[in-house]
């Protein structure tokens, strides 16, 4: 949009300083001139404008309004519900002084690293590599099972996970066949339960991304490495991983952002409890905004989540340099 100048132009005079311009505008642009290039740039921007407007409206808009909301005392009840007022950074001060917040950050990071970065990615890559050399029958069978979890709507997957980990659920029933008395998973190990559930649900996505990526590894490079005496592990480290680097970066970013915002799964399985033992940031934000009616405070937590997501995205993009080949 900046190329459309704010400087008004005379009708048929070309003001001084026109870089590389030759002749008056009335003569029309010549191909190859800077002006023509500019026009081309504008012309090519036009088709993008609707999407830019939509993005601004539906992505930037909510971000700005969420940030503004976090600076108010907006509430669902009481005087602040009628007329919220600007309170500066009070919500953030309160948040950083609350003992629940650091705990929630730690839980969110644990959930993120264990279930997305390590669980879904490593398992997904492992499955993709193994399935490459598996026989077609095994491949389609495993693929179906893994993708089934991904196909389920989140709420259904959450109930399935609840039914599995619940005290009288499938897991403990199966353990009982072998005479093992299972723990009360959702209560005693809430984080482990939700992490496993999220790995189960999300691995399919990583597997599909990596299955496609490893197809792209040129077989001649792998073969020559093999001739040079590189074992399976060395081929993975020096050939496969560097080649699929960009897929790793994209996949890490997508799974991280997805996992950061997981709400339904945790809410259905543990409700963030017991106490606050599985209250990740989305659960905490929901609790403050909608259970405790403090919309402004809840929005402050949501804004922090936004920041964490942004930091992760930047780190991935920088660390894995997907644009350099």
């Amino acid at each position, binding site marked *: 949009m900046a190329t459309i100048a704010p400087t008004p132009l005379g009708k048929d005079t070309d003001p001084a300083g*026109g870089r590389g311009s030759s002749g008056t505008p009335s003569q029309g642009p010549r191909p190859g001139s800077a*002006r023509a290039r500019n026009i081309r740039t504008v012309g090519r921007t036009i088709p993008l*404008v609707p999407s830019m*407007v939509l993005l601004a409206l539906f992505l930037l808009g909510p971000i700005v309004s969420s940030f503004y909301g976090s600076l108010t005392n907006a509430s669902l009840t009481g005087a602040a519900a009628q007329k919220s007022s600007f309170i500066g950074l009070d919500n953030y001060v309160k948040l950083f002084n*609350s003992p629940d917040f650091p705990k929630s950050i730690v839980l969110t990071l644990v959930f993120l690293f264990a279930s997305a970065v390590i669980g879904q990615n490593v398992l997904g890559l492992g499955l993709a590599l193994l399935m490459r050399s598996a026989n077609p029958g095994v491949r389609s069978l495993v693929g179906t099972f893994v993708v089934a979890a991904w196909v389920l709507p989140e709420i259904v997957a959450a109930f399935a996970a609840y039914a599995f980990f619940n005290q009288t659920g499938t897991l403990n029933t199966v353990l009982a066949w072998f005479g093992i008395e299972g723990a009360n998973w*959702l209560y005693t190990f809430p984080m482990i339960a939700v992490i496993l559930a999220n790995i189960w649900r999300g691995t399919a996505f990583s597997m599909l991304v990596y299955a496609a990526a490893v197809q792209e590894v040129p077989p001649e490079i792998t073969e020559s490495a093999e001739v040079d005496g590189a074992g399976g592990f060395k081929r993975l480290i020096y050939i496969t991983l560097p080649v699929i680097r960009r897929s790793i970066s994209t996949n890490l970013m997508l799974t991280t952002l997805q996992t950061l915002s997981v709400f339904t799964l945790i809410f259905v399985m543990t409700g963030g409890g017991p106490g606050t*033992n599985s209250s990740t940031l989305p659960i905490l934000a929901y609790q403050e905004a909608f*259970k*405790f*009616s403090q919309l402004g405070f809840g929005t402050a937590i949501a804004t922090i989540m936004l920041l964490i997501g942004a930091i992760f995205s930047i780190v991935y993009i920088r660390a894995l340099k997907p644009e350099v080949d």
Partner: protein
Amino acid sequence: MSSTGTTTSRRGRRAARILAIAATVMTTALVATGCSAGGGGDSNTIKIAYQKFGTFTQLDAHLKEVKKSFEKANPGMTVQLEPIAAQNDDYYTKLALMERAPSTAPDVIYEDTFKVKADAEAGYLLPLDKYTAKWADWSKFYDNAKEAGVGTDGKTYGIPMGTDTRALWYNKDLFKKAGLTVPWEPKTWDDVLSAAKTIKSKLPDVVPLNVYSGKPQGEGSTMQGFEMLLYGTPNGTLYDDASKKWITGSSNFTDSLGFIKDVYQGGVGPTPEQALDTNISTVVGGEWLPKGKLAIDLDGSWLSGTWLSTGTNPWPEWSKVMGQVGMPTQNGEAPGVNSMSGGWTLAVGATSKNSDKAFDFIADALDKDGSMSYDIAASQIAVRSDVATDPDYADSNPSFKFFSSLVKDTHFRPATTDYSQISNQITVAMEAVMTGQQTPEEAAKAYDTALTGIVGADKTVSK
């Protein structure tokens, strides 16, 4: 940038103009569709928002009856019933979200007395004084009940439907089996705990004692659980009415949390995960008590409503099996028992397009016959003098006499707009203690910090 600007041609400018127009049109269209939420419903329809959840279906039944008679008496009017199937906090949240937008705001609202002040201040409710002034029945309502529907500005916002008290319900059959004396007469908290321990050792398959606790039960935990303890400690209270200050650092608070710890960490309560199930109140009334799986339950006077023939879990033998006894004070201090009272009201939405008819609906629903049939079905303590003294009401439920007798020793929740937020912090403290994540002292300290954050240090006093 200026250099590129100066080279812009007419074509470029035309493109820019088209672009700008297109963008404006699009933005306008989007904004317009997004904001076109002006006024749904019309003045011939009144919308009633109320709770229908688990075993609580009596209000739904009552409103359906009133709808029939109201529509007959007011031809052309439609009553739209909007039951909200949600538990405690979720009900308040859904209600608040409906009330925020004029297009979804209900005309008549089933409103908890403890939310009246906060919601009136939020601008959700309409003052009803001009209607009650002309309503002959208004003089029949008890003054203390009317008080519960008054906002901070002194205006009436809610018409009370009934009130309640709280006490211990116990299963006489299980008590006899465990070798305990019936009728049971606990004098102190320790008596209650020791009876629970006896039951645990004699009847291991039975849950000895249920005290509602933790965040999922919301205000139910605070009132049926915590406040039934706190207000039974010596001078125990959350709020000092005289100085209008909230109490911090009180040993009564820690002691009450200590009782919760004894129940849940001492193994005489439900397991914490059972207690933290959103549906526990439904399970207690519908399953555990009728099936003899729970011996003692600290619960409300309304509990028997679900066991009547009109309820969701008819249990004709309930009046023989279940006994009621007042919750003792901590060490048996006078007056010996403690109770808490709340209750619900019907209110009119602030943006109602037909508030006259909305009030008529309330007047219809809570006239003598309406109040009486609802109070009997939902096991409410009557707030109208003509209902309370009617033998049909008094004889309809054998527990009414006991629960009405608690009214003289009952307490009310602090009547302030920030109470509901403070109540949330109490459930947080309870949950931390019952799950063993914090000691009662730590949880009380965390509560004090949160309390000061809500009301400000100048509104608290250390005791």
